[in-house]
């Protein structure tokens, strides 16, 4: 279906539209992760990207989500209509956002935090656990997720992602975060070798 979409869209811009939603709780770094993904794609992979975000009341707390639309053409609607990729770092996020995942979209959940998955067609990875293992810091889970995304979907190149991480995380934490990303990449590789429950996009 990804192909289908691409074809349909190509009548407009010649190239497809790929919708990503990263959802979690405030403080899990989802907004920064979205920004990194978008910036990697836009500044270093030469594509177009738009990133938007939602959070709780005023500047803090509550649920938080970040969306990235990627395309080689112009991007009009800046939000996810039907997500091609949904990453859920919390139970609430998973419960709430699953409904607008594309029928053959990819769902990644952090099994450290999400107990009940809304579907079985899901890539369940203990993202936070991997993060703690790799860096000792829960907060780097977002980077593990980015590594996973990169490895599983190839919508962003490894090099671009690493550059973006290095330019956007707080000074002094670059290595830590890149390490976490690499843990994600490796996990992706492992998963791909093991075979995934849903089809991945073949091209962009």
């Amino acid at each position, binding site marked *: 279906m990804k192909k289908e979409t691409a074809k349909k869209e190509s009548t407009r811009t010649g190239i497809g539209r790929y919708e990503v939603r990263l959802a979690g709780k405030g403080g899990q*770094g989802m907004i*920064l992760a979205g920004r990194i993904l978008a910036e990697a794609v836009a500044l270093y992979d030469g594509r177009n990207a738009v990133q938007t975000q939602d959070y709780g009341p005023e500047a803090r707390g509550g649920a938080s989500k970040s969306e990235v639309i990627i395309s080689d053409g112009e991007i009009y609607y800046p939000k996810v209509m039907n997500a091609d990729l949904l990453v859920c770092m919390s139970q609430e996020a998973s419960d709430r956002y699953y409904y607008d995942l594309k029928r053959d979209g990819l769902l990644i959940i952090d099994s450290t935090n999400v107990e009940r998955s809304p579907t079985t067609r899901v890539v369940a990875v203990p993202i936070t656990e991997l993060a703690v293992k790799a860096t000792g810091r829960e*907060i780097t889970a977002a980077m593990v997720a980015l590594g996973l995304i990169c490895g599983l979907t190839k919508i962003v190149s490894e090099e671009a992602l690493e550059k973006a991480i290095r330019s956007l*995380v707080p000074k*002094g934490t670059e290595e*830590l975060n890149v390490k976490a990303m690499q843990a994600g990449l490796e996990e992706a590789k492992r998963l791909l070798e093991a075979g995934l429950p849903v089809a991945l996009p073949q091209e962009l």
Partner: protein
Amino acid sequence: MQAGEESQVVEEAPPETTKPRPKRRGRVTVFDNWCKGCGLCVAFCPRKVFELGPEGHPVVAHEERCTACNWCVYHCPDFAIVVELVEGDEPARKTGQSVGGRVRR
């Protein structure tokens, strides 16, 4: 919190475990579903009753030392600690004993 932020829970001087068992004693309960793991109780309890648990939440590790001074009760910003005065010489409970699955001691 942003990625890479350092969570600096500073440890206080070691607790005076050698002191005799206090006269005034407390039974300490931490409500895990309200506790946000800020570490204030862990750091400031004068008797070092708490220890940091694996998920960043405090665990009542040494209830026997508790003098029911209420520091933790008054300073927990999340109303997640209750300290009850222990009558007579009822023994302190064991560390980490779970009450109803949602309360961690």
